């Protein structure tokens, strides 16, 4: 039994750290460290820098231009990026649609889409949730009807909670190509160019004042049948495959460690023993979460399987992220009532009081989504109950 990383892994960690110190774009780092909003171009610059290093395909096999990393390397990569406070890498292209394309797509599709994803020439978004379907994803209603000549689908319906659709070039959608008695059947996985006529993106402003998510409406949107991935009606299978692909990193250990360290530094100047105790409890929680993730990693690396236990990572990871922002609000005291809005107070006009309080509540409000999306924490507990406890 050995918790330490191998020499190779330590070398890899040093390489990641070196990149973060030298090649993580400075203008992005500056804004990110000051909690200033990033522009679309900032995000593109950042992703292209990662791509230039050859790390964009962090969870892809080598044959498609991926890194072919071990689970441990991927863990180290995630943790170090989190510790450095980088923006999370956008998952929609590289980590969500790409594995579906290289696993179930045909050669033309692989050639058409994968290189642009690797180089971040295309920004993807995800068309899963609909106004009526939340945790019950399979109840989706967006329709794709084949034209008479069989060359196109005509798509009608609406998707919602679509993250950064306002920036996206492409969207991958679950659509209903057939109405069946079993709702998981008749679903197809279709890629749609966001410039296609008939697509309308409407912002949803969230309680933190941000425009991060959108509703996307489809009115008679004409899509070539070549954009169907795999077989018609098998979309649900691909969707489940995709979900299984985004397990690791969900614990956000690196990012939470960074936030914890900041919180500890703040608390050390406050002489508030109540806060100290809460932080200690949270630190132990985070420690337990990290070892739990490493245990699953160790199982994987040693030929084992990790199943529904990984829902623990989602549940505890999001609880810890939320709790960190709660304690940051608490440490702001009465100054928590100030609201900078999504674009900050501006540079000349900051209120006095602790500077960390400026975005404490915004972050707190933003983090509320984490226990809701990606399968709410209640759904995760259902999964553990069914698949781990067998009840």
């Amino acid at each position, binding site marked *: 039994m050995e918790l330490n990383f191998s020499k190779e892994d330590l070398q890899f960690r040093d390489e990641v750290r070196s990149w973060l110190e030298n090649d993580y774009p400075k203008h992005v780092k500056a804004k990110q460290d000051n909690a200033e909003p990033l522009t679309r171009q900032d995000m593109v610059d950042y992703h292209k820098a990662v791509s230039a290093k050859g790390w964009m395909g962090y969870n892809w096999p080598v044959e498609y231009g991926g890194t072919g990393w071990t689970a441990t390397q991927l863990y180290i990569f995630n943790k170090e990026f989190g510790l450095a406070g980088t923006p999370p890498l956008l998952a929609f292209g590289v980590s969500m649609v790409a594995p579906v394309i290289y696993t179930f797509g045909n050669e033309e599709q692989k050639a058409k889409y994968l290189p642009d994803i690797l180089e971040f020439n295309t920004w993807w978004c995800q068309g899963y949730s609909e106004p009526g379907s939340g945790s019950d994803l399979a109840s989706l209603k967006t329709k794709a009807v084949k034209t008479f000549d069989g060359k196109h689908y005509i798509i009608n319906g609406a998707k919602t909670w679509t993250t950064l659709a306002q920036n996206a070039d492409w969207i991958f959608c679950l659509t209903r190509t057939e109405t069946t008695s079993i709702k998981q059947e008749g679903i197809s996985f279709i890629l749609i160019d966001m410039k296609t006529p008939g697509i309308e993106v409407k912002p*949803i402003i969230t309680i933190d004042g941000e425009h991060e998510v959108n509703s996307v409406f489809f009115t008679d949107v004409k899509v070539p049948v070549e954009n169907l991935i795999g077989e018609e009606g098998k979309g649900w299978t691909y969707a489940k495959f995709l979900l299984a692909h985004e397990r690791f990193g969900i614990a956000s250990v690196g990012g939470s460690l960074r936030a914890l360290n900041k919180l500890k530094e703040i608390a050390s100047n406050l002489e508030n023993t109540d806060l100290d105790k809460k932080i200690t409890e949270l630190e132990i929680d985070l420690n337990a979460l990290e070892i739990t993730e490493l245990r699953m990693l160790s199982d994987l690396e040693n030929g084992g399987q990790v199943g529904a236990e990984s829902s623990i990572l989602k549940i505890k990871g999001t609880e810890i992220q939320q709790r960190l922002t709660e304690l940051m609000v608490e440490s702001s005291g009465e100054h928590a009532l100030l609201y900078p809005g999504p674009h900050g107070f501006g540079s000349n006009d900051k209120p*006095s009081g602790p500077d960390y309080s400026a975005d404490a509540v915004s972050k707190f409000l933003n983090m509320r989504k984490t226990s809701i999306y990606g399968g709410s924490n209640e759904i995760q507990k259902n999964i553990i109950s069914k698949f781990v406890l067998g009840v």
Partner: protein
Amino acid sequence: MNLNFSEEQVMLKETIQKFCDNDYDFYKREEVIKSENDFDLNTWNLFAEQGWLSMPFSEDSGGFGMGPIELSILFEEFGKALVIEPYLSTVVLSGTLIDNSSYEHKKDIIERICSGSLHISLAYAEAKNSYNYNLPSTSLSSDLLLNGTKNLVLNGGNANKLVVSCIYNEELALVIVNADKDGISMNTFPTVDGQSCAEITFENVSINSEDVIGTGDNAITLLNNSISLATLCVSAEAVGCMSSCYLKTVAYTKEREQFGQPISNFQVLQHRMVDMFIESELCRSLLIKAMLEVDSGSDDMHKHVSGLKAQIGKSGKFSAQQAVQLHGGMGVSDELMIGHYLKKLIVIDALFGNTDHHLKKYAQ
């Protein structure tokens, strides 16, 4: 023993409720928040006409002589509708403080508050005093020059006058000063709950001696009673928010279908809503206790306000967080009341001392 409201109190409650239901909907509120103004002048004038701005003031000053019970009723209803008008700062924090002082012009000021023509803010907070309001660094010199910076002055940007806490002759003192006086500069900021506050700097602002409205123990009493009453009011507001949170969540889960049935069928969600209901009821009980203690001016009144506020901080955040969670994606949308209850309850926990602060005060 009788813990039911009197007939007059029930009538008051119904009148306010009717106003909120008919004339204060979500979209109107959003409009005002997004406009240049921090509140709606017509609404404020309506408050004046209804006599609500006169409620807590002594009859001598032209008020209705109502007390913490009526204020709690008002604020609970305001909490349900998330009323943003600056009642707390002008009427409760500043108005009652002045009314309780021996300031010679107080009748004039209270009358103008009641008519809706005057806004006053209490400048009690500073960047570094973390809930200890009796030791400001703002000072009044022996030749009555005021120096220092106050922040988080609620509605400060709209205030015609300010009540400022400061140190004078090594004691706490309270002074009244016109907001447009030379030497006063101001920055305003939005607050999380859609209101506004100001950071105000005083630089050699000369104060008339008659405008020093309290010093020493008298100033401490005036300030603490005013803040205690305001703490009670925001707690009542929180109870309003909390009861709306569970009622709206029950209604939503009954309508929202997932997996072929309303999600209110899921036992985990049922028990979560029961917990929200229980927290709300327990807070209401503490509110009743505290408002009766404040009403009778008992020795224990600050203690019971602290007990209430400590619980409100915990239960309020719990209720709103669960309401958001059970609303799913809709819960984090700015277009629904639910998320705004969460913001309000965060603000209320932060105002006048959070849970841990009041637990310590309660235990003293």
